[in-house]
């Protein structure tokens, strides 16, 4: 893997303080987050695990600054989050590449938006190299496979050298082989760059294989039901008995132990 030149590798601290949030659905209030309290230290890779629809993506949107929380507050490096900022970048479950832009133009978007294209343009090639898409820089999104599109979305995020990388089920739609390969690649990337990572997933193995910590959420409205530190060295092995034991515990927490 080619190293991406970094300017400030220190990860960001995220402090979610008793955040509650909700929406309105057909006129009735729909509580989605219920007093979520979570502190993420610099350089951690925290997996958020919970049943589908419980509010994980909502929490990520709040952390990204795309919406303000209804109650509670969120701090990035001690400062309250007032809006989106390129130091906190999100990769969504859908790659959502801009179809009218080539792969390279998609990757340059962040630099272009901030007027940094001239001074930091070389980072684009590095980011494309990093995700193995140099040969497809001039392809349009509809010419990419699902895995390639997801890599392009990752490059689009990384080119901004984020201090917090938020990954919302980034591998959810990939086939299992690509998925396993990208899990390893993401871990290596995170280890080499030192950013803080937030990874939403509904795949317990994925969380255990990648994260330093696993946060388990309840059904909607999401409350944190467990906060497990995964104190295992990298690179990890999928057959590690400690991880297997942890998996069992998490299944229990989710009320699915009997299926094991």
């Amino acid at each position, binding site marked *: 893997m080619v190293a991406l030149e970094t300017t400030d590798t220190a990860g960001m601290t995220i402090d979610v303080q008793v955040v509650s949030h909700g929406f309105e659905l057909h006129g009735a209030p729909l509580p989605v987050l219920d007093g979520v309290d979570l502190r993420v230290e610099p350089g951690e890779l925290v997996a958020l695990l919970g049943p589908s629809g419980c509010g994980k993506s909502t929490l990520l*949107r709040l952390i*990204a*600054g*795309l919406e303000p929380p209804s109650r509670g507050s969120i701090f990035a490096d001690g400062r309250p989050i007032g*809006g*989106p*900022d*390129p130091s*906190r*970048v*999100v990769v*969504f479950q*859908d790659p*959502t590449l*801009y*179809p*009218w*832009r*080539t792969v390279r133009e998609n990757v340059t*978007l*962040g630099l*272009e*938006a*901030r007027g940094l294209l001239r001074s930091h343009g070389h980072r684009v090639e590095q980011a494309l190299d990093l995700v193995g898409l140099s040969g497809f820089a001039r392809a*349009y*999104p*509809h010419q990419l496979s699902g895995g390639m599109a997801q890599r392009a979305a990752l490059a*689009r*995020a990384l080119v*901004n050298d984020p201090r917090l990388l938020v990954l919302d089920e980034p591998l959810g739609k990939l086939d299992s082989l690509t998925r396993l390969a990208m899990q390893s690649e993401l871990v290596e990337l995170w280890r080499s760059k030192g950013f803080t990572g937030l990874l939403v997933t509904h795949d317990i193995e994925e969380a255990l294989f990648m994260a330093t910590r696993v946060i388990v959420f309840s059904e909607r409205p999401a409350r944190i039901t467990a906060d497990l530190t995964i104190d295992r060295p990298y690179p990890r092995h999928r057959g590690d008995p400690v991880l297997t034991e942890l998996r069992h515990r998490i299944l229990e927490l989710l009320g699915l132990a009997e299926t094991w």
Partner: protein
Amino acid sequence: MSVNDTAAGLPAVNGEARPSGRSAPRGWPKEWSRLGTASLLWFIAAAVTALWADADEWERTGEFASLLAVAGGVLAFAAPLAGRARQTAGGRLKGAAGRLSAAVPWLIVLAIGLIGWEILTAKLNLLPRPFFAPPQALLEVYLDDWPRLLDCLAASLTLLVTGYAIGAVLGVVTGVAIGWSRAVGYWVHPVLRLIGPLPATAWLPIAFFAFPSSWSASVFLIALATGVPVTILTWSGVAGVNSAFYDIARTLGASPRFLVLKVAVPAAMPHVFVGLFMGLGASFAVLVVAEMLGVKSGIGWYLQWAQGWAAYGNMYAALLVMALVCSGLVTLLFRVRDRLLAWQRGMLKW
């Protein structure tokens, strides 16, 4: 709705689009003979025109016959060349040969049609005159009245392009503004709903009265006819932009200006082009009406003037020019679209 959708029902007339099994060497003597048939028919048309005396004398019968003979000659030359080009040459020449061979059925039918037209009008006078002019009457117009036709064409194009460009630009700007700003939407939407469905020509009496010149009134009407569909479709395009596109750009540090110019507008482009096509069609209609009723120049005026003098040859000649110009402009717009929207897949070829 998009151009892609609306055109999906049309049959593919483009010969290039199909895989051509006919390019096999075994096929080309047959192709040669079909081109030969076409050539022969054009010569026959020339002979009928030249050798069969007109019922009433027409001035340009000789020139018309020569023109038909030239067409026949070109086709006769093209037959062997085309066969060879398809076999040996590559690229552009081969493409031209392919297109020529795809056009052969049309060339044959055209020649037969011209012969029939010529016989029914000039030779036998079977169709009521002066409504039915023979083809040489059109040629006569082109040869004798071309300065005036050219003037009219230039006047029409200037008027059309001015009005269309103003309408298109204002339409895109208004559409984006409505789609983007709640306040603009609040004020403009009801106006658009009330006025939009009204044909622009309904404003004609007021416009001619309110504007200092009939020319500026016509520009206004054409701009209105173009602007309304462009506005509505741009708006619907902007309103339909996937909100995740905005979210991502915002987390990457995009300003509102960037969101409008680099996200909303390009995302809405396919819709904008549907509006531009609809506007172009509407602008043709308004152009002709405005020229017939107010502006004392242009192809529309020429049509009206020719009809007033019962100069039907002039009318058909002008109609043909107009058809060619309108079709050319639509083709041009398709070209622009193909270039700007090359990122879309499965686009209609015009």
